[in-house]
């Protein structure tokens, strides 16, 4: 067995693999967050609650209606997206011209309310959600046992990130969206309905969170507090990547996952703080974030 810095390559590879899988969650989550911030100028603190709702609705579909994992992967984000539509139309759109703080306060309050309702109804221990039959078992990679489901999580997240990137960078709708972000007045003058695009962006971002929630359901217990644990890291990822930078959010998401994996090898106690340490350093030497533009 080859040793690197006194750590066997077997352990090194397996920890990095796990880090990459955790990074997949961070990337999907922070992608939605960055998208919303870039277009709406809103720091969506409800993101963790919407991730939780994604997992919970998947569980509810199974528990009450007998609808399994695969349909839930589409249905659950659609339902959470619909709730996002209501939030944007009813509440958020009044805040675009105000300071960031108002959006932050509103979304933070919303997340407390949503999580409180679920906690009151379902407690905190969580509901069991089985791994779908197709993805049970795992592969022996030689250096580790990789559950099939985790491999699927990685593939699905990368796929979703690529799809979103393609939608924004390579389609007509995406180019209008980017234009509207730069100069909404001008784009409106061309007869493009900017408010509708903004609503759809929020719905899209929220759906990404819910999608990550469904992916997480079979790994973690589906519980009212599952979003609370992930949201600080996701915010740190967005800050490191550069607020509003979609590409930055994805790359940083995976990088932070890897970094956590490596930290667990060297000094496990610091695994949860390493990302914030990096965030502080980035804020000092490059306040706009690794991939951010200076005017943010």
């Amino acid at each position, binding site marked *: 067995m080859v040793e690197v810095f006194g750590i066997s390559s077997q352990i090194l590879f397996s*920890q990095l693999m*796990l880090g990459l899988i955790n990074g997949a969650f961070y990337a999907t989550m922070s992608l939605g967050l960055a998208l919303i911030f870039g277009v709406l100028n809103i720091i969506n603190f409800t993101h963790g609650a919407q991730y939780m709702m994604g997992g919970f609705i998947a569980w509810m579909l199974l528990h009450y209606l007998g609808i399994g994992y695969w349909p839930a992967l589409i249905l659950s984000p659609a339902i959470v997206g619909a709730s996002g539509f209501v939030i944007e139309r009813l509440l958020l759109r009044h805040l675009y011209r105000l300071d960031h703080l108002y959006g932050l306060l509103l979304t933070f309050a919303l997340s407390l309310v949503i999580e409180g309702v679920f906690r009151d109804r379902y407690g905190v221990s969580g509901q069991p959600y089985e791994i779908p039959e197709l993805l049970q078992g795992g592969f022996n990679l030689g250096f580790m*046992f990789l559950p099939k489901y985790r491999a699927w999580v990685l593939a699905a997240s990368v796929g979703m990130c690529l799809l979103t990137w393609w939608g924004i960078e390579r389609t007509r709708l995406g180019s209008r969206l980017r234009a509207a972000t730069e100069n909404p007045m001008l784009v409106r003058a061309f007869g493009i309905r900017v408010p509708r695009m903004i609503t759809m962006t929020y719905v899209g971002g929220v759906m990404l969170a819910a999608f990550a929630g469904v992916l997480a359901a079979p790994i973690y217990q589906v519980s009212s507090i599952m979003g609370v*644990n992930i949201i600080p890291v996701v915010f740190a990822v967005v800050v490191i990547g550069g607020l509003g930078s979609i590409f930055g959010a994805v790359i940083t998401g995976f990088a932070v996952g890897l970094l956590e994996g490596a930290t667990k090898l060297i000094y*496990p*106690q610091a*695994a*949860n703080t390493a990302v914030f340490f990096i965030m502080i350093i980035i804020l000092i030497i490059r306040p706009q974030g690794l991939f951010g533009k200076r005017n943010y």
Partner: protein
Amino acid sequence: MTNSKCYMGCAVLLATMFLNCTAVAAQEGVKIGVMNDQSSIYADLSGLGGVEAARMAIEDFGGKVLGQPIQFISADHQNKPDVAANLANRWYDAENVDVIVDVPNSAAVLAVQEIARQKKKLVLVSTGGTSEFTGAKCSPYGAQWTYDTYALAAGTARALVQDKGLNWYFITADYAFGQALQRDTTKFVTEAGGKVVGFSTHPFPNQDFSSYLLSAAGSKADIVALANAGGDTINAIKQAREFNLFKQGGQRLAALLMFISDVNSLGLNTAQGIVLTTGFYWDLNDETRAWSKRFFERRKVMPTMTHAGVYSSVMHYLKAVQAAGTKDPLTVMQKMRDTPINDMFAKNGHLRVDGRMVHDMYLVQVKTPAESKYPWDYYKVLRTIPGDQAFRPLKEGGCPLVAN
């Protein structure tokens, strides 16, 4: 205009807060405060269930002691030791709380123990598990009712080492409770002829356990022991199944602290076969069943051992106040030590000078789905561990109150 409205609102709010405070201070009866985690990972095993159990005890006692109505408050310490300390200071000083009950999270428990000592008021712990509480940090004002890390270690470690579980690997929550549990368990494992081959510490709370589980699998240990609790234990067990820890390496999982709420959350399919030590099980006898069914009607879940412990401790406290004819803390505590505890929770239990309530513990195994015949039929009792074997002998804890 908006500003003045806001000021008005704030003023009204403040005024009502003061009104509440004065209303409370005017009365002089016994005041019981349940402090626990009502919003974070221990909210199901303690939380509002603990609040309800204390309420049941007060109701069953008749609602009055020393001719005065029993007052009751509760609060969420959010699993944060600093919040717990602030609450304890305020309750003892400003709100005239006589006794703080339940208190999960060992770090919070040790903080409240010190404050109770300074303020000369009582604390009756049910959920907090560190054995330090009755060891070096013991106090004449503190009692620990339901279990401690020593009892968990003694019950589970002895049984598993005897059953060919010689090599142990720990996955430990990185705070007072996890450390105490690992230390106490290590002692029993080595004494029984086993050895500890490694450990990982994880931040508290934590969600992803995959990397710790992989290290555990790589260690080739016979037993992978979880020195954590609540949501952490649940996620670790669930992911251990996912990573095939048991089939691949032939390893066995020991959840050193597991509550019936955790088993209920995981489902028997995932939790089956796990051996654990508990201070109470709802389905032990007619008395436990009768009480637990009353609890169930109120909370729609069966009680955990710490819920039952809260009830027992509050009941015993109220009886002692009544018998002593005073609420003076040291007099009441002496009365509590002098009187044996006989209720649905404990038979011939007794409270020691170091604050340890000694009672029988139970070594149980989680049933398979096929063995479970009715809702919440989760455990089969393997063995009753008599109190004097379950808990640390009085002289070994290093409590300064114990005369040599």
